[in-house]
C-alpha cells in the first residue's frame, strides 16, 4: 500500500494547512475528562488521541435545537429559516461516528427526504483517525473496525510516532497538496485493535434472536433499574427523532417554531392528542429502543443501526449496558434452541 507518513511533530502544521482550506472541526477537551467536536481556532487545542466525544458529529447536520420557521400573527405569514451546507473538514472522526453519519444519510434520504439535514450534509470532507477501544466500545461486533475507511476522504492510522495517511478519495488526496512535511509510506496499513466488549452474535443471527425476544423478561427487569431519562437516545449517534414546539415572542405578534432532539425512552414521546400514551410502560420503551437498533430498521437496511460507540452505556447513570441486554437475549435464544433440539431428539427416541 502507498500512503504517507505524518510524524507527531508535524500534526499541528497539518491541521494549520487544513485550516487554510476550510473551517476545520475536530475534538477538543471539555470540562474535567471529556471531549467534544468544536471548530478549530488554534491547532494546539486539537486532541486527535481521544476516547470518544460526548456527542457525535451528528450535531453539525442535525443540531440538537433549531428554529424551523418564524411566524407572524399579524398577517398569518411565515418564513422558513435558511439552512446552509456546513462545508467543513471534519478531522479526527472515529469510524463508528462516520458509520453513524452514513446511517443517518440513509434515514434522512429515504421516504420523505429531510431537507435541513441533507443540505447541511453537502460539501463536507471527513478525515478519520483510528482509536484504541476502551471497555465500552464494541463496534467490531457490528462490523466497524477502528480502521474502517468507508465514508472518509482521508484516514489517519495511528502509529507509535505519528500517523499513516491513507488516501481514500480524490478529495482526500487533494487535501495533502501543498503540504510538504509528509514522507512516502510503503507497507500494510495498521488494521487491528483489541476490543474488550463484544456482542455474542452477528447481525444475521441477531435478526433471528430479536424475532424471539419480544416477550423476554429482560425488558421488565431492566425497567426496574432504568429512570427513563432519555440519555441513551440523546447520546446515540444514529438516533434522530425530534419534537416540535411553538414559541411566542414577547411582542405577541410573532414567534418561532423550533425542533429539538427527542427520545423514545421518554413517556411524552408516545403521548398523542387526547392524552393517550401508547408505550406507557417503561419496559415497552426500553424494548422499543433496542429493537430500533437491531431489528426494525436493520431488517430493511440490512445493517445494525447501532454502531458500537458505547455512549448509551457509559453515560447511563443507572449502569444499564446495551451489550449486556443483547447478550442476554442471545443466550436466552441459544438456551431455547437447545431445549427445542433436545425435545426433537426425545421425540425421535
Amino acid at each position: 500500500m502507498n500512503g504517507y507518513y505524518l510524524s507527531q511533530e508535524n500534526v499541528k502544521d497539518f491541521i494549520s494547512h487544513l485550516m487554510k482550506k476550510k473551517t476545520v472541526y475536530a475534538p477538543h477537551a471539555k470540562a474535567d475528562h471529556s471531549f467534544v467536536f468544536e471548530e478549530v481556532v488554534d491547532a494546539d487545542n486539537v486532541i486527535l488521541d481521544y476516547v470518544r466525544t460526548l456527542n457525535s458529529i451528528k450535531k453539525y447536520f442535525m443540531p440538537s435545537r433549531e428554529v424551523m420557521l418564524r411566524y407572524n400573527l399579524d398577517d398569518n405569514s411565515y418564513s422558513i429559516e435558511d439552512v446552509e451546507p456546513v462545508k467543513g473538514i471534519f478531522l479526527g472522526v472515529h469510524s463508528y461516528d462516520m458509520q453513524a453519519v452514513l446511517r443517518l444519510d440513509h434515514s434522512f434520504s429515504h421516504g420523505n427526504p429531510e431537507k435541513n439535514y441533507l443540505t447541511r450534509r453537502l460539501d463536507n470532507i471527513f478525515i478519520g483517525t483510528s482509536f484504541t477501544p476502551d471497555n465500552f466500545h464494541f463496534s467490531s461486533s457490528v462490523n466497524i473496525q477502528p480502521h474502517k475507511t468507508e465514508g472518509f476522504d482521508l484516514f489517519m492510522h495511528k502509529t507509535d510516532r505519528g500517523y499513516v495517511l491513507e488516501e481514500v478519495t480524490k478529495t482526500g488526496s487533494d487535501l495533502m497538496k501543498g503540504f510538504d512535511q509528509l514522507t512516502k509510506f510503503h507497507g500494510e496499513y495498521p488494521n487491528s485493535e483489541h476490543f474488550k466488549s463484544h456482542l455474542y452474535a452477528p447481525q444475521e443471527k441477531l435478526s433471528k434472536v430479536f424475532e424471539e425476544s419480544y416477550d423476554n423478561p429482560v425488558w421488565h427487569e431492566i425497567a426496574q433499574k432504568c429512570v427513563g431519562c432519555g440519555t441513551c437516545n440523546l447520546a446515540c449517534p444514529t438516533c434522530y427523532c425530534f419534537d416540535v414546539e411553538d414559541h411566542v415572542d414577547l411582542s405577541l405578534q410573532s414567534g418561532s417554531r423550533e425542533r429539538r432532539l427527542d427520545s423514545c425512552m421518554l413517556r411524552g414521546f408516545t403521548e398523542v392528542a387526547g392524552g393517550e400514551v401508547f408505550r406507557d410502560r417503561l419496559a415497552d420503551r426500553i424494548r422499543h429502543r433496542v429493537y430500533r437498533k437491531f431489528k426494525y430498521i436493520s431488517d430493511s437496511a440490512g445493517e445494525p443501526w447501532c454502531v458500537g460507540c458505547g455512549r448509551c452505556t457509559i453515560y447511563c447513570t443507572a449502569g444499564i449496558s446495551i451489550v449486556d441486554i443483547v447478550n442476554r437475549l442471545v443466550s436466552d435464544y441459544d438456551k431455547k434452541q437447545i431445549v427445542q433440539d433436545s425435545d426433537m431428539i426425545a421425540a425421535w427416541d
Partner: protein
Amino acid sequence: MKSKPRVAVFDFTGCEGCELNKLNFENHLLDILDHIDIVEWREAMDDQVAEYDIAFVEGSISTPDCVERIFDIRNRTKVLIALGACAVNGGMNAMKNKQSLDTVREIVYGEDKDLFPTLPALPLSSYVTVDYEVHGCPMTQKEFLQLLTSILAGKKPVKPDYAVCVECKLDENECVYGKGMICMGPITRAGCDALCPSFGQYCIGCRGLVPHPNKEAMINILIENGLSIDDAEKRMDLYNSNEKDVVLI
C-alpha cells in the same frame, strides 16, 4: 383598544423569591406591561381590587388562614397560575409533612405553639383548580415569560415533561456523576436548561420530579454513588415530599 388582562400576584408559605424574581425582569418589565395591567401585588404596590383575570400565586398552603385565602382568590380570578416549587408541589415546606404537626409547631414556636395553627404543606392544587404551573425554586424568567406569552396569545403553553438529563445532553454537558457528584437530574423535571450542571454543579431537584418517575431506580443510583439509604431518601424528599406519582414498569 382591547382592554388588557388584569393581573394580580399573591403569596402563601414560601420565601417570596419567585415574586421577587419577577421584579428582576428589568429588560422585559415594560414589554410585559404593554400586555397586562398589574392590579394587585403586595410586594410591589398598595392597591387591592375585587376581581382579576389572571392570578399568579406563590407559596404552599400550610395554615387554615391560607385555605380561606386561596378559595377567595380562586373565586375572584378567571385563571390561576401556581408560581414556583412551593405552589406547584409544596416544595421544601413539605418536608415538614414527614413529622407530626405538633412537633414542627413546637420546634418553630416553642411554648407559643398553640397560637399558631398549622396544616401539612400542600400545593395549591390540593385545594383549588390550578390552570397552569411554573416549576422551579425559584421559577425561571424564561419559563414565566413563555407561559405568559402563550396564554396571552391563546396558545397552549409548552411544559417539559422530561428530565434535566435531556437538557444536559442537548447542551453537550459532561455528566457531573463522572466528577463524583450526586445529581438529581435523571429524575428532575427539565425547563431550566440544565442551569446547575451547565456550570459544573449538580442538580438538587428544585423543579420537582418528572411525571411518572421511577423513584426506586433513582434511589438505587444515589446509593450506588455512595449515599446511605437514609440520605438517598432525604435527597429525594428535599423538594418532593408530596410527589406520589410513580412509573408504570
